[in-house]
């Protein structure tokens, strides 16, 4: 739906105008690095845009369909224009920054098809090419200091609401429309329109759209402290009026004031609830009261960071038993290797930690997202004693929330929790975050988790193709999209923690080809038994066995005979046996040992890359 309407828009623009969009984005990108674009450039842009609107009007082209993506672009344009004409005070850096940040994601969304450059995995806003080569560190650090302090300063008071928009924007859009309709009704009856603002207990105040504002947008004011932000919100629209008739816009979505968003969501929830359940107002009221009673202190003051535990980093380092090369490193040798591959010696712990800190501090308190992440983290690798520790779980939540904030297009998807668990196991919190970003960007894992999961089908197809080539009998017996879990968790929910270092070493080096090798090897291991089974569910169920027991605390070199078992392994074994007796753990471990040995043996499945060459889509992933 998205793509279609954006295409519509693009079609209606003349080809000459198209590149200007791209240009403007570059400027914005620049902006988001913390550098102000040169005045002239910006002015040019604004002129271009005014020009563009006028031209559009002269041609009498009406752009009616505007989805969220387009709207954002529009918004960005507006912000540029408003910042250049000094009629009004400039919008505060926060909102500007956020908008621009958002635009970057947008740009990236369009350029995903292209191959990644070498620096793709470097942290956002850290374009080393812009910094002079003579004093990279000083510039770098000072920049980060300002960056982080700025973020701390402003982001306390703001919430990046659009994070959730990327997920279920459709339903929310409907809710917004309902709110808009409501405000329109209120506009008709002026008595109800203005709710008085009580200073002692700041409450929601609905401010009606400014006169002549046909957009139907409204802004909400929470408290005097955020008044500035909300007052500047209307600026873009006024500017638009100056340049001509405003283009139809659904609603003002970039309202970052925290309390107002909360209230709005509640309001919207109740509206949808009402419509869904029919005339059940009494019950709705009951729920309202209940919600009010259940509110914690945390809810009452969302602009203040009360729960410092969620915000402070407590990097305990690795949890694994791998060898360490240097003692000053928090991550194990393997994790260091992955960082070297992904960041080409650019990774410096302190600097990257600050960056990560920035993402955590600026991450909004999205209760829904947080609770869903927490829910999943609490059931990740729970048979492993180290993952039962609360501090580790909190670290995992922090990493996932920070990533959801870093990449709102992707946000959080189930399966990421296993990847983060495996990374934290080997590298500690900070490095896990950066390794996750490297996996997402450089290794195109982002494609798998994006809206509609486009990468998933590509990988499923690749596995099916390889299966048909190597395991012809098996894939004549059955095909289908069965590898969802393997792909969504990069096999890390299946491979035992003890083995995953070997696997990940290979993955970071050879990319997805390693993944395919393991998948084919595993299927080969199961081949005979799958051929017996007749229906897809039981095949699926059989394959699922591979996931059982991946998190058991098996000692590294556990002997496979019971007699010479160490005390440690004995304790863990007894703990495990209480959980599930149906799984033969030794068998499971042996199975994975065989599978991984088979997968990493280059003599088996030797020409896998050649088989995949003909598959166009997988070339995107560079295998």
């Amino acid at each position, binding site marked *: 739906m998205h793509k279609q309407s954006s295409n519509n828009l693009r079609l209606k623009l003349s080809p000459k105008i198209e590149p200007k969009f791209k240009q403007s984005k570059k400027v914005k990108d620049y902006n988001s690095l913390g550098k102000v674009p040169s005045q002239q450039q910006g002015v040019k842009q604004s002129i271009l845009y005014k020009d563009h609107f006028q031209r559009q009007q002269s041609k009498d082209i009406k752009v009616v369909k505007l989805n969220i993506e387009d709207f954002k672009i529009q918004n960005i344009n507006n912000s540029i224009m408003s910042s250049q004409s000094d009629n009004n005070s400039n919008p505060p850096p926060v909102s500007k920054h956020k908008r621009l940040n958002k635009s970057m994601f947008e740009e990236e969304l369009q350029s995903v098809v292209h191959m990644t450059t070498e620096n793709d995995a470097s942290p956002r806003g850290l374009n080393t090419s812009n910094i002079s080569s003579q004093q990279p560190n000083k510039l770098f650090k000072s920049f980060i200091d300002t960056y982080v302090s700025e973020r701390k300063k402003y982001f306390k008071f703001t919430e990046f609401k659009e994070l959730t928009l990327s997920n279920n924007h459709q339903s929310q859009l409907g809710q917004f429309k309902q709110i808009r309709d409501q405000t329109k009704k209120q506009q008709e009856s002026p008595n109800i329109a203005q709710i008085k603002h009580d200073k002692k207990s700041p409450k929601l105040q609905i401010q009606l759209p400014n006169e002549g504002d046909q957009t139907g947008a409204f802004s909400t004011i929470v408290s005097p402290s955020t008044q500035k932000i909300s007052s500047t919100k209307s600026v873009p629209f006024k500017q638009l009026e100056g340049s001509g008739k405003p283009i139809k816009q659904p609603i003002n979505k970039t309202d970052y004031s925290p309390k107002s968003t909360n209230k709005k969501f509640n309001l919207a929830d109740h509206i949808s609830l009402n419509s869904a359940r029919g005339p059940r107002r009494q019950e709705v009221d009951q729920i309202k009261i209940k919600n009010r009673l259940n509110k914690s202190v945390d809810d009452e003051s969302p602009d203040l960071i009360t729960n410092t535990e969620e915000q402070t980093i407590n990097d305990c380092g690795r949890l694994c038993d791998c060898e360490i090369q240097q003692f000053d490193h928090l991550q194990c040798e393997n994790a260091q290797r992955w960082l070297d591959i992904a960041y080409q010696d650019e990774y410096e712990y302190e600097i990257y930690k600050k960056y990560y800190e920035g993402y955590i501090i600026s991450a909004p308190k999205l209760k829904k997202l947080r609770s869903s992440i927490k829910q999943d983290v609490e059931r990740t690798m729970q048979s492993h004693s180290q993952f039962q520790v609360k501090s580790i779980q909190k670290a995992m939540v922090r990493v996932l929330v920070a990533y959801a904030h870093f990449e709102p297009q992707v946000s959080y998807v*189930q399966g990421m929790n296993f990847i983060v668990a495996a990374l934290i196991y080997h590298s500690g919190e900070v490095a896990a975050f950066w390794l996750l970003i490297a996996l997402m960007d450089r290794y195109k894992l982002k494609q798998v988790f994006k809206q509609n999961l486009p990468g998933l089908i590509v990988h499923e197809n690749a596995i099916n193709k390889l299966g048909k080539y190597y395991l012809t009998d098996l894939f004549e017996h059955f095909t289908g*999209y069965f590898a969802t879990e393997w792909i969504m968790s990069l096999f890390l929910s299946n491979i035992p923690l003890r083995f995953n270092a070997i696997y990940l070493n290979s993955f970071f080096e050879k990319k997805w080809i390693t993944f395919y090798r393991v998948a084919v090897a595993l299927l080969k291991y199961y081949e005979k038994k799958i051929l017996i089974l007749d229906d897809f569910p*039981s095949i699926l169920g059989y394959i699922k066995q591979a996931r059982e027991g991946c998190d058991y605390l098996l000692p590294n070199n556990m002997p496979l005979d019971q007699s010479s078992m160490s005390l440690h392994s004995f304790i863990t074994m007894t703990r495990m046996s209480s959980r599930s007796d149906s799984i033969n753990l030794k068998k499971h471990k042996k199975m994975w040992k065989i599978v991984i040995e088979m997968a990493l043996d280059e003599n088996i499945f030797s020409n896998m890359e050649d088989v995949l060459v003909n598959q166009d889509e997988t070339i995107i992933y560079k295998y």
Partner: protein
Amino acid sequence: MGNCNKKGKPSRPSVRDPINIRGDKENKVSYAKVVLIGNSGVGKTSIAQRFIEGKFDENNKNTVGASYFQKNISFKDGSSLCLYIWDTAGGEKFQALAPLYYRVKSKYIINIFQNAHAAVVCYSVTDDDSLKQIDTWLNKLDEHGNIAKMIKVVVGNKSDVDKSERRVDLKEGKLFAQQRDLPFFETSALLNDGSIDELFQKLASQIKQSFTKEELHATV
């Protein structure tokens, strides 16, 4: 497979031990496909596990994609019904998985909801949002399911929690289901109080009543 076509032998815990399914299933055993849907974390896997294996696993992982269970249910009149239970992932983005297809021996299945005889729509009594989301799940069933008389059941899980943790009352859930003309159950996968067995027993008998034997064939 396994426990579906055996006589006398004790039924085994489902999938773990594959036994040749080829047998006389066409003649004696009817098959029904049941999908478990609902928001993430409401306890779908736990419900299935309690029903199939009779135990509660605290260390359940979150389901990615879909997983599968099956169990045989026998009735008083001697006949039996094999339930194929598809346990789906509740995560938001997994909704895109619906149009995936499977094929086994030239039998095609386009999506998980296809050929489903019954759907168990779950919510958690500790999460009022999951109750609200039931409507979206019901819409999804209408959209992707191909059997018109599919039986839908609303289930409120985690009934064992304290009153202080409860967000959705029993009455509220009942009323919710009533307004949609759906049967309602409140269950607990943690406690072994028989609530889940009751749920599936009633569901199975309902399936048997509303579907003919031909319709209960194994196109799962």
